């Protein structure tokens, strides 16, 4: 691992200490999520002002064959539907943003929209997400992600929870068109950490924190 990469990771962890995982958390929660892969980066700073809505500041990094793009924008997250059962919870989230897309020293306006659905029990987890971005810079960008997870044990509140997951990503515009990544998710109290390596050898390091 290069010193620069280590510095970036440490920076992201430090940034997390300033400030979530789901697009909308409990009312009054502030959180940070950072997602880091060689071909994709995604950082969220979120404030849930209602139980079903949050405002966020979002930055995304895309590695495309022509170079690197950055998207910056404010975002509105909405919990469209939640099903609460004694042993499970399922959610549908919608979110949208309008911001700037920077490429080769030029910035263009860009709109961004996404839909995410998840379901989990203390033992199983499934999630699917689709996002699309519109910009006059070039063709629309879109990508999808799917996750399956299983917990080797059912952790209590004061224990470290661990999950074994498999993630499939599809993003035809990026340098990596798709990726299958086995990963481990660990969390304790309000701090969550994920790490994995894809079948192509790409690392992934994600961190979430909320208060």
């Amino acid at each position, binding site marked *: 691992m290069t010193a620069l990469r280590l510095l970036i990771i440490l920076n992201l962890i430090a940034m997390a200490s300033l400030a979530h995982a789901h697009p909308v*958390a409990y009312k009054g929660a502030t959180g940070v999520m950072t997602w880091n892969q060689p071909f994709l980066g995604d950082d969220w700073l979120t404030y849930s002002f209602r139980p079903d809505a949050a405002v966020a500041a979002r930055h995304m990094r895309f590695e495309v064959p022509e170079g690197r793009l950055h998207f910056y924008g404010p975002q509105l997250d909405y919990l469209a539907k939640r099903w609460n059962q*004694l042993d499970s*919870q399922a959610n549908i989230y919608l979110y949208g943003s309008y911001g700037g897309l920077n490429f080769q020293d030029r910035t263009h306006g860009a709109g961004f929209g996404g839909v995410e659905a998840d379901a989990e029990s203390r033992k199983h987890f499934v999630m699917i997400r689709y996002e699309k971005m519109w910009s006059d810079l070039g063709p629309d960008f879109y990508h999808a992600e799917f996750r399956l997870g299983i917990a080797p044990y059912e952790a209590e509140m004061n224990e470290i929870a661990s999950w074994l997951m498999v993630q499939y990503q599809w993003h035809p515009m990026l340098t990596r068109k798709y990726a299958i990544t086995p990963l481990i998710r660990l*969390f304790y*109290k309000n701090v969550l950490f994920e790490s994995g390596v894809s079948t192509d050898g790409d690392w992934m390091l994600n961190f979430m924190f909320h208060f």
Partner: protein
Amino acid sequence: MIKWFLAFFILFTTSVLAYTKTVKITVKGMVCGFCAQGVIKKFKSEPAIAKVEVSLEKKLVTLDLKKGQDFADHKIEEILTDAGYDVEKIER
């Protein structure tokens, strides 16, 4: 007679002041410890509540109230709804 009355009065008031209530709430949707941190945070910020315990296995939030304090059901429901959960049952 007055002595007996005084003794009864002191015993009665002492027992009322020393009495603490426990409220047990069965919660729907509380499956993830990471997300349930908000429940602990919100209940702990309430002056009437001395202790909060969450059991994911039992789907239970247990509140120990401070001496002589009470905490209304509608406030419990409000906090848990704001945290994204549904209340199944409140037992006192």
